[in-house]
């Protein structure tokens, strides 16, 4: 949702909005980390029982999300 909103704003306002959108994305990733850690901490045991560590979960999900964000911005820039 955040990525889609950022792409829409980037499409509308262009490269001048990049810096603000970048920091908006970073802040929302931080908020997602905080709320998931607070409200979904019990579910970590599911993944640990499968051998997936907290670090692997966080690094993979946040990195994939951020890559999708950057990739979408690049594509929008080219097709705009």
């Amino acid at each position, binding site marked *: 949702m955040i990525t889609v909103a950022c792409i829409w704003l980037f499409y509308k306002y262009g490269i001048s909005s990049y810096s603000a959108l970048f920091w908006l994305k970073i802040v929302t990733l931080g908020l997602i980390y905080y709320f998931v850690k607070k409200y979904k901490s*019990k*579910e970590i*045991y*599911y993944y*640990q*029982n499968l*051998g997936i*560590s907290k670090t692997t979960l966080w690094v993979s999900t946040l990195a994939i999300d951020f890559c999708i964000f950057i990739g979408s911005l690049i594509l929008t820039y080219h097709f705009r």
Partner: protein
Amino acid sequence: MNHKLEVDGIFLEFGNRKILSDIYFKCETGNICGILGRNGQGKSCLMNIVYGSLKVESKSIRFDNNSIFKAYKRPDLITYLPQFNFIPKSLTLKRIFSDFDLDITEFLESFPDFKIKAKQPIREFSGGQRRIVEVYAIIKSKSLFSMLDEPFSHIMPIQIEKFKQILKKEKEKKGFLITDHMYRHIVDLSDNLYILKEGKTYLTKESEDLQTLGYVKL
């Protein structure tokens, strides 16, 4: 092959309150080790320490005499059923059994009520049904040991008896560490029964010990 889990040297305190200080227990393949204790004695903390998810000043957790500090990184060695629901609600029964590499047909034979629910996310299950899936997945998980924190809570008596049979069969392949306040089931199942009292473990020899150590009034 027989495997051994030994735990000792644990020291845990919250503020000035000493929780665990003189702990020793041993669990081997083929054994069910029961741990009983009053509320607040540190049973769940002890399991979290063994699992490595609760950090303490000192501990010694040994699998076949090899020290392991972060057992949660080794699901081949140990799996853990916490006392609360831990399976993400969006997952279906099929997905859960696939993740744990378990045979769903065997489960559905034991618990036929779930046949119509195999493709539903477990958010649509009742609390007891969710617990049945969680307890079953951990008991049957392909680890050398499993720790079960209150596996019988929220489960109806007829299902508890089923789980006791499953545990007796599964212990041929692995070791179990169980705690629950439904102590008669724990006494019935356990090969070694420990009482946790004032930070210390006491290996009981007869059911009168439960009264002597202040856990029940017989």
